[in-house]
């Protein structure tokens, strides 16, 4: 007979599986049923899953809101671009690159991985300072960090191209590549959440005093989550570049920060499933609103929302969620397999299909 604890652990471990299957169904639906625009939207959504699952690793477990993760996406995207662009092109576009990088002509996959790794390295260095601060002050410091990275990227023209776009990136991201990375991010996020470090970090989120009394080194667990989180945000940023083929610093600044935060808040910061639900819900909303900004023809007249209304509507939705459903759409629950499935035989545990995270 399986203990209640084992069942709960197995149910928790089934979360990434359920989410991955859900995303697979989403891709299949989008690529077979929809047009090219739909497939494009599906790919963008999956890249956002990578970004937001990475983002959740830190924010969801530590309870500290970060405004700096778009900077990790920025670093990941540029590192990957530096390594994959044709050397001849780099010579003219980015003359300031060191010779070793200027000569590099890597395939996309190792470049994306390196982008993630360098984002993680940057997180290690910056986090060592920022994460010593208490919650709100740390949030402000992450915002300063974002502004710092953006200032550097927008002005370091010989290396980053400044505010003008870097073009011609290898467009390696198909819906399937994006799905692969999204699933990898979900598995990593889920494993971290179930790890000793993840549990310890969530304990500090609930009650800082009690957690430190029980000997939890909050700073160390925060830093670990931050670094892991930055890796997937770096990867997500690189994927964005390799999907559209064009990058520029402003694509990795406040708008991306806002979108990632909105997705997390709307879906619910308390669970990974919530983060994914938030990405899906807002991606669909963004898609709809973008189409309405381009104009919708009804009979003889064309309605078009003015540019900018997309952000206004999403921001309003976010505020309404904070007021009326502060724990988000999923209210901190994880989607799992039912208990009788994970026990491997029919038992009397007809558990619910959702499970409140035990923190």
């Amino acid at each position, binding site marked *: 007979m399986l203990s209640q604890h084992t069942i709960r652990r197995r149910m928790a471990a089934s979360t990434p599986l359920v989410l991955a299957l859900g995303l697979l169904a989403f891709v299949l639906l989008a690529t077979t049923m929809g047009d090219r625009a739909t497939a494009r939207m599906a790919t963008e959504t999956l890249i956002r899953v990578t970004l937001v699952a990475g983002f959740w690793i830190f924010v969801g477990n530590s309870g500290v809101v970060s405004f700096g993760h778009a900077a990790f996406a920025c670093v990941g995207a540029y590192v990957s671009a530096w390594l994959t662009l044709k050397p001849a092109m780099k010579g003219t576009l980015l003359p300031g690159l060191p010779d070793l990088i200027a000569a590099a002509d890597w395939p996309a996959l190792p470049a994306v991985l390196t982008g993630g790794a360098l984002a993680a390295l940057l997180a290690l260095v910056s986090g060592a300072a920022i994460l010593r*601060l208490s919650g*709100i*002050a740390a949030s402000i*410091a992450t915002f*300063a960090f974002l502004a710092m990275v953006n*200032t550097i990227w927008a002005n370091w023209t010989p290396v980053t191209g400044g505010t003008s776009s870097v073009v011609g990136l290898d467009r390696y991201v198909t819906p399937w590549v994006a799905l692969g990375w999204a699933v990898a991010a979900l598995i990593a996020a889920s494993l971290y959440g179930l790890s000793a470090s993840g549990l310890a970090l969530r304990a500090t989120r609930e009650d800082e005093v009690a957690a430190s009394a029980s000997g939890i080194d909050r700073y160390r667990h925060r830093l670990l989550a931050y670094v892991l989180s930055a890796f997937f945000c770096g990867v997500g940023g690189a994927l964005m570049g390799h999907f559209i083929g064009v990058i520029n610093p402003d694509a990795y600044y406040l708008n991306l920060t806002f979108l990632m935060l909105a997705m997390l808040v709307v879906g619910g910061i308390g669970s990974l499933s919530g983060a994914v639900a938030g990405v899906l819900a807002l991606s669909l909303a963004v898609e709809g609103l973008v189409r309405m900004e381009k104009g919708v023809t009804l009979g003889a007249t064309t309605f078009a929302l003015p*540019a900018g209304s997309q*952000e206004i509507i999403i*921001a309003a939705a976010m505020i309404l969620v904070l007021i009326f459903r502060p724990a988000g759409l999923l209210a901190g629950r994880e989607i799992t397999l039912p208990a009788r499935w994970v026990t491997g035989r029919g038992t009397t545990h007809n558990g619910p299909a959702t499970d409140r995270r035990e923190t």
Partner: protein
Amino acid sequence: MSLQLLFDALSLGGIYAIAALGIALIFGVMQLVNFAHGQFIACAVFALILPSSQAVAELGLGRLPTPLLIPVILGFGAALALLAEAAVFRPLRNAAPVALMVASFALGVALQNLLLVIYGSRPKAVSLWAGLGHPVQIGGAQVPLLQLLVIGAVALILAGLALMLKHSRIGLEMRAAAQDFGMARLLGVRANRVISGAFALSGALAAVVALVMVAQTGVADVRMGGQIMLIAFIATVLGGMGSLAGAVAAGFAIGAASALLQMALPAEARPFRDAFLYGLVILVLLFRPQGLFAPAGAKPRV
């Protein structure tokens, strides 16, 4: 040269201090880090001009005579902040500081895009108080008249605010509420009055910053509140979260550091001045996480 530097530092620091006060006032009474403050500033800037997509803006409210213009714009800032409080923050009164902060961020995005919808994304030239750019000779330094006026106005505002906090009824209630809101309410202090008062003051201070920025730069840009808001945040963290005097002191310190960096950095590194500044701040916090101006040993309040 050094006199010039002093004036630069004072005028820049003064504006940073006013912006930081706008953040610290609200944080003090309701633990809200207001990420919409930069957009309060931007909205007050755009309130001066008429909606159009032209590159040169036509003044609307900005055409009012100065003695009328200043109270009208300050009133606009205060009204905007009060509206934000009633619509967004009052329903969240009992929410966690993190939720409040995220809501203010969303509000900021909404306001910025509202400006985009109404005025378009192109920065606009605005000529407000064009005569104030003339330099005045003081000692060996050439100082723009505007800079002197800014320094004077900041001194006046800080003194007035200090007097108000120290000697008025609402000032006493704000200080009590900043320490222990629950206890203040048990003594009959009305939460709505104190919070509305803090928001109105904060919005009016945002409008002051807006007027100075327009006069200095001659530009209206929807993004113009962001950078100064960030500096104001940094000043409130350095000042010890919620300490008004600390925020002001840190605002001046950052102004001085900026002016010094601007002078000391080689020309090709100047665009990175703010990056150096932010990096410097993160470094400082590494050694004094409780802030520069909080008493040693004091714990951050959050």
